């Protein structure tokens, strides 16, 4: 700190958020105490989601403890470091919050004793990592890196989920301990191989193994504390941890060994080769991290006693030297504004503490004697020698060690030591919060190197949790070949270090074809997803309603065809030819329906089409009549008339506005649509025949006809069904009708008002009529009350004779429509009691209310009550049924009558006074 600085401003004071470091520190102390007191393994179990078989089970054994100590220990220093590094940076509070969240997720993940629980925390680390990588989210590159990390680890997570679920399925439990304990019993389960493959993919993505290795250097877009913590010391070790955790169950499996050793070995070599390509300090460290992770994976896959101990030792050592190196890189970046090794040199004098930390950590990384890295490397070598199975692994290991040596030199000697002109000039040491953490961690590496027995028991126990039992001492003492090997490695390392720049230039001539680059695959995927999505979606969602409809119908036909084809042969009911007057009438009506249907498809003029389709409806009404259903026939008839009236008025208006431009369709279009229609018609008809061939349970119809008179007090079964047996349906329908009116009013008004062109020719109004119209006018004036009166009669007698509220309402609608045509819609609407909208809503409420009294008597809704009202001279039968039917009548009249009148009004001339256009009772804002 006493170093004179060339810049006048002192380093910014560390952020107070650094006190958060006390949290991991406390946890670290707790974990350490638990270990020293021999409380390990610790177990906590709580029921969480027993129905899914997930338990909130945590178990802290030695393996978990190593990671917990790393997470909290390194975590403490990361928080301190971040306080210095992020001082004065905007939104640093968010960074700290995310770091805390990440730490919790990590701790949960390594202590979880339930695979689902483990997965929960696993995904949380991915999410927090995503948010941390994208901390500088204004930059496109930051976002891209975050996305890459998310897609790779997230995608891997999904695969891992499948693996975990399959493992749990095979083992019959989600508890890790139970799973491992019973492993021999289920290891032969057929799904285990697939499950392992999935678990591998999950672990490899998280721990940046080939071919998913490329996201890790990308993640260096994160602020340095994040890189040091997540992407070097802890999160990326999760994959390794998971494999180590499962090792006791599968360690002897050939598939397990081969996969881990080959993928891990390749990654460790490949990662080191890739460091040579980089000039950015952080990326150099990132690739060497990838390589180290590969080494760890390989160690787990190696058979033999020593491998597990070696893995545990190297796990610790790597964290102890790599985290400080990241801190150092961050300090250099802060001090100089660059991380490119070509622009850095001779910083040692300007930044003594940082450089000291760098030197110590570098020694560890290089594997120089006395450092913990040396001990770990030694252990690794011994472990590798232990297995004659994978001899070539030793050569790979030698190369990786030498390259690490060289990389350590690049990261330290070159930038701190090299005397060549000091660059950049203004470099200076930062606050204590930035240089103390690396110094501490790195020194710890040396301490452990001098006294390896300090950590021996912990590492040996951790190794035992992985299922192997060699003690570290055993491995350390077996150093027959290691000195000469070390000398060789150092020689090679020095050569690599000296030739670094030359190698860098050479490798530029050796570019892998893109097909062999995993990153290129990823990029292709990221380009491919939107491209395929755009293609598919634009084809499927092209915007043509007619094509959409065709989709639906074709699919429906295909589905029905599929089922019918797989079903029993269709049985068509026996057909008997009988010729009576009824049959002839029915045949006539059917013929009329057929002809009209064909005509609808053939005519071009929309108005004619409407009229012909009205014919279809009328013929249907006739058919119903001949088949002995006068109520249905009458309803059909009146509804059809109303339908034609409404549509005709609207069509007239639309025509006048010249809105319709019928596109000229190609011939195949028409033909294919025609074929489709025929197909649908044929299918519907054929299925009806099939339906008729079933032996129907007649109990329902029999019940209705037998109970209608005695229990429901009505001789007209159709009406009794409507107002009593299935009154709830009817209630729903009248509300549908009411709502239809409410929904249609804005549309009709739009049609009337929006396109009110000044040149739109006005139709003859009520005034200035022709003589013929005048006669019509007079006739309607007389007819209107008669129609209304008869509608009331139809309503009242409906329960016993053909009729009822619905039909009566439709008659009233006809009356209103006629009046609208003759005297204008306003006049007709004014004649409606309460106005159409209120009439409909009030009536629907009345119908609804008629079902309520029963509730007070403890009967179900819509249980009708009957009684007689003495009037002195006579008695009046009253019932809630009548109230209900009156409601139906009013709702139908109000809603459909209003609809007809409003539709007719659409094509009426406007009056200039806007207040007359909309009545007070209307649904108008």
């Amino acid at each position, binding site marked *: 700190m006493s170093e004179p600085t060339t810049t006048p401003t002192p380093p910014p004071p560390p952020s107070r958020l650094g006190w958060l470091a006390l949290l991991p520190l406390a946890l670290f102390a707790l974990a350490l105490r638990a270990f020293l007191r021999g409380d390990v393994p610790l177990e906590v179990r709580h029921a969480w*989601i*027993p*129905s*899914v078989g997930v338990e909130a089970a945590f178990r802290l054994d030695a393996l978990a403890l190593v990671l917990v100590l790393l997470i909290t220990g390194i975590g403490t220093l990361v928080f301190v470091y971040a306080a210095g590094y992020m001082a004065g940076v905007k939104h640093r509070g968010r960074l700290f919050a995310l770091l805390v969240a990440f730490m919790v997720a990590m701790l949960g993940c390594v202590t979880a004793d339930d695979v*689902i629980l483990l*997965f929960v925390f696993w*995904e*949380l680390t991915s*999410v927090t990592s995503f948010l941390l990588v994208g901390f500088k*989210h*204004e930059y496109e590159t930051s*976002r891209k890196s975050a996305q890459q990390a*998310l897609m790779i680890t997230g*995608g891997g997570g*999904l695969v891992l*989920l*499948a693996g975990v679920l399959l493992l749990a*399925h095979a083992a019959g439990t989600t508890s890790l301990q139970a799973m491992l304990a019973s492993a021999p019993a289920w290891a032969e389960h057929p799904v285990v191989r697939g499950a392992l493959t999935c678990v591998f993919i999950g672990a490899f993505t998280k721990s940046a193994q080939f071919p998913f290795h490329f996201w890790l250097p990308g993640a260096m877009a994160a602020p340095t504390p994040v890189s040091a913590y997540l992407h070097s010391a802890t999160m990326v070790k999760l994959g390794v941890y998971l494999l180590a955790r499962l090792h006791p169950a599968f360690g002897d499996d050939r598939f397990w060994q081969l996969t881990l050793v080959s993928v891990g070995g390749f990654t460790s070599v490949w990662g080191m080769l890739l460091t040579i390509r980089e000039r950015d300090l952080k990326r150099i460290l990132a690739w060497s991290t990838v390589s180290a992770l590969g080494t760890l994976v390989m160690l787990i896959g190696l058979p033999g006693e020593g491998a597990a101990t070696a893995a545990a030792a190297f796990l610790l050592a790597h964290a102890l030297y790599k985290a400080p190196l990241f801190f150092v890189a961050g300090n250099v970046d802060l001090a100089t504004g660059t991380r490119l090794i070509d622009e850095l040199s001779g910083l040692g004098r300007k930044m003594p503490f940082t450089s000291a930390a760098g030197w110590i950590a570098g020694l560890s990384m290089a594997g120089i004697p006395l450092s913990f890295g040396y001990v770990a490397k030694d252990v690794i070598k011994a472990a590798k020698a232990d297995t004659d199975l994978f001899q070539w692994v030793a050569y790979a290991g030698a190369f990786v060690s030498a390259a690490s040596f060289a990389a350590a030199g690049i990261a330290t000697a070159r930038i701190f030591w090299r005397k060549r002109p000091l660059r950049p000039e203004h470099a200076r040491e930062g606050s204590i919060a930035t240089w103390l953490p690396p110094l501490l961690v790195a020194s710890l590496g040396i301490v452990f190197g001098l006294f390896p027995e300090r950590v021996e028991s912990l590492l040996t126990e951790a190794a035992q949790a992985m299922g192997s039992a060699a003690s570290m001492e055993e491995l350390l003492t077996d150093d027959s070949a290691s000195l000469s090997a070390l000398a060789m490695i150092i020689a090679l390392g020095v050569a690599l270090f000296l030739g670094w720049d030359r190698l860098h230039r050479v490798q530029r001539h050796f570019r892998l074809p893109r097909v062999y680059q995993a990153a290129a695959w990823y990029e292709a995927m990221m380009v491919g*997803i939107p491209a*395929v*999505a755009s293609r598919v*979606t634009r084809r*499927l*969602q092209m915007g043509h*309603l007619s094509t959409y409809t065709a*989709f*639906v119908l074709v699919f429906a036909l295909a*589905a029905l065809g*599929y*089922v019918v084809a797989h*079903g029993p042969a269709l049985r068509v009911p026996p057909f008997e030819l009988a010729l009576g007057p009824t049959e002839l009438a029915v045949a006539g009506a059917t013929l009329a329906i057929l002809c009209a249907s064909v005509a609808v498809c053939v005519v071009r003029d929309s108005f004619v089409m409407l009229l012909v389709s009205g014919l279809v409806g009328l013929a249907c009404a006739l058919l119903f009549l001949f088949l002995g259903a006068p109520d249905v026939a009458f309803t059909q008839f009146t509804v059809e008339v109303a339908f034609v009236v409404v549509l005709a008025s609207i069509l007239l208006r639309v025509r006048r506005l010249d809105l319709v431009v019928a596109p000229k369709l190609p011939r195949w279009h028409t033909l294919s649509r025609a074929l489709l229609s025929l197909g649908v018609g044929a299918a519907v008809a054929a*299925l*009806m025949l*099939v*339906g*008729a061939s*079933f032996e129907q*349970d007649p109990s*329902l119809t029999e019940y209705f006809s037998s*109970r209608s008179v005695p229990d429901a007090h009505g001789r007209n079964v159709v009406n009794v069904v409507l107002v009593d047996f*299935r009154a*709830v349906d009817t209630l*729903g329908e009248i*509300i*549908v009708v009411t709502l*239809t009116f*409410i*929904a249609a009013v804005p*549309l009709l008004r*739009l049609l009337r008002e929006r396109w009110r062109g000044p040149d739109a020719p006005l139709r003859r109004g009520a005034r200035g009529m022709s003589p013929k119209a005048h006669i019509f006018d007079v006739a309607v004036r007389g007819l209107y009350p008669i129609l209304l009166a008869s509608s009331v009669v139809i309503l009242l007698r409906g329960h016993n004779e053909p009729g009822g509220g619905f039909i009566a309402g439709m008659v009233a609608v006809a009356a209103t429509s006629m009046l609208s045509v003759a005297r204008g819609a306003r006049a007709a609407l004014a004649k409606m009691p309460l106005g159409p909208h*209120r009439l409909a*809503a009030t009536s629907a409420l009345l119908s*609804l209310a008629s079902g309520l009294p029963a*509730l007070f008597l403890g*009967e*179900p*809704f819509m*249980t009708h009550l009957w009684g007689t009202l003495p009037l002195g001279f006579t008695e009046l039968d009253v019932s809630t049924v009548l109230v209900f039917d009156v409601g139906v009548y009013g709702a139908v009249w109000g809603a459909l009558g209003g609809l007809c009148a409003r539709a007719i009004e659409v094509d009426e001339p406007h009056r200039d006074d806007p207040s007359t256009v909309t009545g007070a009772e209307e649904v*108008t*804002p």
Partner: protein
Amino acid sequence: MIALLLSPILVPLVTALSTSLLAARPVAQRRLGLVGITAFFACAAALLAHVATEGTLRASMGGWPAPFGIELVADPLGAAMVLITALMGASALVFQLSDADAAPSAPSLEPLVHAMLAAVSGAFLTGDIFNLYVWFELMLVSSLGLLAYRTATRQLDATLKYFVLNTVGTLLLLVGIAYLHAATGHLGFGALSEAARDHDALRLAPFVVMVALAFLVKAGAFPLYAWLPASYHTLPAPLLALFAGLLTKVGVYALLRVLGGVFVLTPSLVFEALGWVAAATMLFGVLGAAYHWDVRRILAFHIISQIGYMLLGIALASREGHVGTVFYVIHHIVVKANLFLIAAIIFRHTGSYDLRRSGGLYAVRPGLAALFAIPALSLVGIPPLSGFWAKLLVVRETLAQGRWGLAAIALFVGLLTLYSMAKIWFGAFWKKHPDEGWRPAEGAHLGPAYLATGALALVTLYLGLAPEGLVRLAELASAELVGGPR
């Protein structure tokens, strides 16, 4: 008790009709609407509480016994769905009080909304297939009214597509019901289910498939979903949330009821086919989401994709599968509606639903970002949020049945969902707003909006951290489903 059973239908119906009588007095209308939704919510909560403790509630309307009268049934599934309906209605109406893309006031707005809620409730409570049709009809009419009431050209275009395609579905349903009635003589679920046992399942299958097809149209399954992305984005936010949350799920519910309960004996080839329909629905839905830039369109396509998962649960034709579907449906309703509502807040701040013209919110509105992250991550299926458990239940059963292909597609779609959700995150939150001088909307009236979305986010969090209750309920619901709601 009968009153309690009926209340979730009658209360919104009465609210709909009486608000329509107040058409000339907008303030009174809105207040009455709020009173109505509160009452609805209270009734629905009481009903679920009753059903959860005392068991299924059923009553035959008109006092005519079961196969003859229309039966209303509140089993655990139905009651839970009704409560979630009330929750959605309440959230939408509270959100409507804010100024974040609220639905423009109109006299027909409140009646239509409440009628739609009544229809949805009715569909969940009825035990009669024709009565179900009636509620579907009311749903169709009120949704059309809500789509069209603003009468701009793009809304009318949307309405037309919605109308035509849904009407095809409705007609399929009507014809299917008619044929089922012709074949069995029954309409009640219980009686139909018994009759189905007496008939050759393969002979009855075409009619069941017809009805199922209709429900698939309503649910928005591949390739029958064209109406959904063609119309949803034209709705104002609170209505969009209602549509997105509820309507397609009524289709899924009905399909579950019919294929998982009433006609559970339907031949396995139907379920086999449904599995692939589900897979295609997931895949093509999420591709649509990956293509679009309008938040509403992305989210609309997500609905389709997520419907695929729910259908997959039905297609697995096992109790575990049904549990997955029930959990999925309830989780999804909350999450989806919330996402659309939050999208409206984003819109209010950035001025656009188009991700290319928005951004910068993470820096200035971190709370909103966190609020968005909860339902967004839940939809993707990130633990420990509700969507994770939903996906877990479905995928686990898929794997347990050895349907590797379907499981692989389900997981791959999860990745694409993550991709498309990240797109919203980047576009609206992380990247800078393209307009240099942009500031978040000051003076926006967002209190009710945050209240509604915050409450829904809390529900999602709760379902994620303590899913046991809902899983139990789903198990109870599936147990009652099989054998029909008898």
